[in-house]
């Protein structure tokens, strides 16, 4: 069973040791996904699997046969950027840009979690509808580090894309 990556079926690597991150970058030359710490501490390698954000550095590619992977390269439609990509530009959500693909994929996964009602560490009521305040976004995005310190612009960019019914 192939892995579906940005809409295309791809045969899994023969060596079971290959991480999903190295498979994307080295074998498929999808270099948008970045290798930061390679140990699950920085979030730079975040991709979407069946719509959920995961760390591709800690994932073995062989585990993803039959599943759908979306990377930063799979977000734009032709020349039209994904709304979050445009929002990151508009709000200076980066400086060097190295963490940006992971930040954007993470924010997309985060939005899906919030939409289905997943609470966070800072949610006072575990059963209430999610309201994506700045504090909530900071907590929900805490797995993605930005060493340039663009976090305020990142949160501004994400806030702009929050649907009205989920805004504070």
């Amino acid at each position, binding site marked *: 069973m192939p892995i579906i990556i940005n809409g295309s079926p791809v045969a899994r690597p023969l*060596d*079971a*040791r290959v*991480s999903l991150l190295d498979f994307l970058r080295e074998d498929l030359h999808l270099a948008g996904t970045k290798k930061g710490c*390679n*140990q*699950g501490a920085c*979030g730079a390698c*975040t991709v979407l699997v069946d719509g*959920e*954000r*995961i*760390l591709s550095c*800690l*994932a*073995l590619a*062989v*585990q993803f046969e039959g599943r759908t992977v979306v990377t930063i390269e799979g977000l734009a439609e032709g020349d039209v950027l994904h709304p979050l990509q445009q929002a990151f530009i508009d709000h200076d959500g980066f400086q060097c840009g190295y963490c940006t693909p992971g930040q954007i994929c*993470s924010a997309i*996964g*985060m939005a899906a*979690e919030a939409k*289905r*009602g*997943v*609470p*966070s*560490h800072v*949610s006072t009521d*575990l*059963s209430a509808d999610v309201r994506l305040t700045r504090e909530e976004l*900071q*907590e*929900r995005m*805490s*797995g*993605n580090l930005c060493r340039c310190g663009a976090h305020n612009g990142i949160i501004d960019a994400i806030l702009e894309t929050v649907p009205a019914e989920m805004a504070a």
Partner: protein
Amino acid sequence: MTPFDYARAGDTAEALRLGQGPAAAYLGGGTNLVDLMRETIARADTLVDVTGLSSAIEETEEGGLMIGGAVRNTALAEHRAVRSRYPLLSRAILAGASAQIRNMATVGGNLLQRTRCTYFYDTDGSRCNKRVPGSGCDAIDGFNRIHAILGASAACVATHPSDMCVALAALDAIVHVQGREGARSIAFAELHRLPGDRPEIDTILKPGELITAVELPPLAPSARSTYRKVRDRASYAFALVSVAAVLDVADGQIKDARIALGGVAHKPWRASKAEARLRGGPATEQAFREAAMAELADAKPLSENGFKTELVTRTLVAVLGDLAGAAS
């Protein structure tokens, strides 16, 4: 990483068959095992992927929940019944790791992540009895601010990093396992072990045994529960100390108290001495403080982590105060 064979198990029987080799390991989300294998701290010749096994969360006849071993951490934290009936478990999970890691990590894998410290990872520069048995421990006289104050040994002072497990310890969860000699059930407090002179062994599981489910007994409807974690950063950091507590108070008297501590020991630390002091007594701040002090009477801080005894005391007093207030 040393080479290994990969096999995906379709059911428990197949997983057990594939997992019987002496150097086989079960693979969940991989968030700990893959990292350790990359550092060659962990080695396996076969990885048996068990993420396709039970990911169900089902009601039990007793009024509790049966959680499949392959349930992802996020799925457990967001489950409606867990949020409403076991809020301490949702809160513990949400306090741990990052959202990406919670999406990957399984329940079984969370239980079986290694008890560890930074010296355990420092393959080039440090001695570690857990990594290389008998080699020595550089943490005991080193930078030991984050290390254990209870139940440690001269061989190892590392702490168990799971938040979820602290809540499961307070809940009297039951761990269901299967192995070549059949199925057995383990009280959660018995699953993990203290280091003693064998710190390389974290649990009482036998080779080839697989965690198939974790069972939550029902809580009294009048009981209140929560989880509080204290750490160096606001998010995405291991606990310095944490408290999971269930408190059942009626007319100012404590009917039941169940408490577990994180960040203080080689395993999630069930605070039985504190519980014994509290049961049947008044729900007052003084009683909470005396219970904490009873639990910490045997604490043995290292050179840099003496602050943990006071931090545990204050956190426990605050948590129990909140729960008692919510119940009145």
